[in-house]
Structure formats: C-alpha cells, structure tokens
C-alpha cells in the first residue's frame, strides 16, 4: 500500500470558515446562532440577517436532518474529482433550519431520496481538516 495525499479542494482555513471547520475537527457540528433573536445561520457571517445583531455563538447542532436536494455528478468538472464519479453532492436540511452542502458516506447515488433522514458523519481528510459528511440515520 502506498500512502496517498488528499488531493481534493479544501476550505481556506481562515476567519469564520476556520472556526466552523475547527469545531468539525473536534467532532462537533456547530452553526452560528444569534444571541439576540435566536436565529441559526449558515454559511458563517459577521451579522444576523434577521435582526442585525453582531452578538452570536457557535451553537451545537443535533447533526440530524433530511435530504433537501441533490445532484449526481457523472462527469467530473474539476480535475480532483475525475476518479470519484459518480458521486452526489447533497443538500441536507438540519433540525433548526440551516442547510449545508455535503455528501453521504453510505448511500449510493441512485438510492437518494428527498426527505431521507441523515446524521452527521465526520471524515478527517488531513491532520487539520475534518469535513462534515452525512450518513443514513
């Protein structure tokens, strides 16, 4: 066995994106929640779009949600995914309301269904970066 390096695109680890992925590396899926009005938000932003408050916290998500929509990539449009096809980028709607773009670890693309219950399934891809994949709940 030869060791292969992870060659797919990674988030740029700075600012609020880094904070989000640092929580993932600790095995916790957290989203920003406004401390003023309680609204959850994703992707990370400096201010609450509901009430304009700058006061927020990284609130722990249950990690449970349902499949909202998806696509199956059959022809990779980025060289790093050339050998991964077919694969399915999936939008998961979490309890609490935010959605995120992910992939499912244990569901074949042709078995995907909108509304399917799923659960976060972290995948460490580099020593620094853990990505929030999901699996069937």
């Amino acid at each position, binding site marked *: 066995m030869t060791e292969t390096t992870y060659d*797919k*695109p*990674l*988030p*740029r680890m700075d600012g609020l*994106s880094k904070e989000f992925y640092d929580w993932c590396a600790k095995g916790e899926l957290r989203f920003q929640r406004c401390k003023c009005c309680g609204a959850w*938000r*994703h*992707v990370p932003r400096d201010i609450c*779009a509901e009430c304009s408050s700058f006061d927020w916290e990284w609130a722990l998500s249950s990690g449970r949600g349902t499949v*909202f*929509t*998806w*696509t*199956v*990539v*059959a*022809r*990779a*449009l*980025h*060289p790093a*995914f050339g050998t*991964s096809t*077919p*694969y399915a*980028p999936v*939008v998961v709607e979490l309890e609490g309301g*935010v*959605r*995120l*773009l*992910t*992939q499912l670890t244990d569901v074949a*693309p042709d078995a995907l269904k*909108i509304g399917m219950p799923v659960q976060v399934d972290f995948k460490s891809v580099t020593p620094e970066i853990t*990505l929030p994949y999901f699996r069937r709940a």
Partner: protein
Amino acid sequence: MLKDKACIVGIGETPYCRKPGSGLSEMAIQLKAAVAAIEDAGLKASQIDGILPFPNLGKAEALAASLGCANLRFAATIHMGGAAPVASLRAAALAVASGAADYVLVPAGWNGFSGARVRETTTQDLDSIPGGAIARDFYMPFGLTAPPQWYALMARRHMHEYGTTHEQLGAVALAMRKHANLNPAAVMHSKPLTMADYLASMMIADPYKLLDCCLETDGAAAFVVTSAERARDLKQKPIYVMGAAASQPYPADEITNRKDLHQVGLSIAAPEAFRMAGIQHSDVDFAEIYDCFTFEVIQQIEEAGFCKRGEGGAFVENGGIELGGRLPVNTHGGLLSHAHSLGLGHLVEAVRQLRGECGPRQVKDAEIGVVTGWGDFGDGSIAILRR
C-alpha cells in the same frame, strides 16, 4: 420612468465557432463585434462615451484606448455573470436617459472553446464571482464545483415538487435545435436532434445530460445604446427599451440556504420590468431566454410570469416555445444550439427580430420581445423591447 427613453441603435457579432477557435485574442474579437455594432448604428467609434464591459473579460480603459474613445464619461461592469449584458442594457439606458453618457457600448465575447474552459472550473476561477469564497469553503470540498452542478440542485428540487420531467427538459433542447436549424449562423445548424438522441446523451450532473448543457464557443457580440432623441437621427430603426430590471436571489452569494429555492433574481426583476413597460405577458411576441441549461428556461418562463410556478414543464412541451407556438423562445438557437455568446447574442437576436431581419426564423409581425439574463448563483435581468 425609464420607459421608451433609450434605444438599441446598433448590433454587431463575430462568427461563432468551436474548432479550430477564433485565432484572435478575447479583446480582439470583442473589438470586432464592437466596431460592427458602431458601424451598424452609423456612428464613429470616437463618439462612444460610455462602455460597460462584461465581468472579467476586458477593461473599459483598454476598449476605449483601442477604439479611440477620448471622451469616455461612463464606465462600469455589472457583476452578474450571464445576467450582465441585459443588466448592462438597463444601466446603459439609465445613463443615456440621465445624460451621463450619449452613446454607450456593451460588448461581450470570449474564446469559450479554445481558451480557458468553463468546464474546468478551478478554485482560482471562483475568486472572480460574488459567491466564490463561499463555494471554495463550503461547496468545492464536497465536489460541487461548476455551474451545471449548482443549478442541478434547483432542477432536482423542482422535479420533486412539481413533477417536471426529463422529457420536458428535452423539449427545451429540441426547440433550441429546431431554431438553430433555421439559422445558418448557429454552430449546431444542420444537426437535427431527436428526443431519443437527447435521452441517450451522457449524464453530466443529474438531471443534466450533455444535451441539457449550453455550447462552449469562441465569438463576440456587442450593441450600442443611445437616447430616444438621438436615436431618431441614426441609420437604423430604433429598438426601444420599454422596461428593464435586474435583481438577485436572496442570499445571492449562497444557494443552499434560500428559504425559497425557486426565487431567483428574475422573480423580482420581471414584475418591475412589466410594470415599467405597461404591458401584459400576452402582448409579448417572442422571448430570448438565457439558456445555460434547459431547466433554467423552464424556471425563467415561470419566474418571468409567462405561467405559474410548476407549470413551466407543460408550457415548453408540444411546441409551446417553438416558432409558431404560444411563445417562441430563443429563435436563433440560444446558448444551447446557436453559440455561447454570454447572453449578449440573445439581445442581438431580439433586435434582429424586431427589425424584421430574421428570414425563415422570423416571428411574424414581431412588435414586442423579452430578453432575459441569468448568471452566477441565479442573478437575473430582463429587458422588454419594442420596435
């Protein structure tokens, strides 16, 4: 009120091609189209005092220097991707109506086939679009890397909610090809397409097959806008801007967290443009709809108000958007079968239809046409034009 204050007075286009490519720089092909548009208007290049270049495809300074525009008074770029040309028409109309400029040039062109390929989107490319950093940090790590994949998320959801079918997407592809076969300038002219061909084409990003995706071509187009008063003295019969608007989905820089995934820029822009024009949808003789992918035609027909949301699939079936149908769409063949003119070709075609220059693909007695643009994560623009 902008209604009828501005006119398109000149149009220009280069040939479009795939292999072997234009053989020219992206600046040079845009200059060719620009010079053609300026000559079509009966103007001298030095009279152009406003330029609105397409995002990332040339600077107004360089275009002005090449064209000899020594009196450039108005320059801006509308960062809306494929929605930029129609949004730039709106901006140009505002400029000439207010006196900020007299003659505004809007060019767009690229070596979309022989140059850097859209299909190989990289992290660096994303830096240039408004939602690029979000895509880089939250989409690309999971393999959502390119436009057909972004929009497939919307198409899939629409199919789930409204029962839109692959065959309905195919009806869009077939209509565009049928029109291209009436247009000798179309890259896919003389290449007939059947539903069986469509359904057999390779999957790219489900539900999008190869034949749901626009062409990648080299070529450029341009138009010139001036005020209604100035337009009366020029060479061509003026084409009036009755209504124009541009808007964005919310949030515009992130696709997945939209409360209403189907609400796009056009959902806001279209009612504004129709109010401005003071017309009904039934007054529209044809529409040139930005067709980056087949579903976006269905979606924009709905969001522009030509039918209710969820009814777009049925609208495009049975020849509904073909010449002779209830709303002929993309009479030149569109991005799907004419060429990827970055949406500027849709405006050029609308002007030709309203001038009555379209020969076998002419919409009979065309008086009013709608043109839309679509770009980035669902930005939208619309113009309602009349002869």
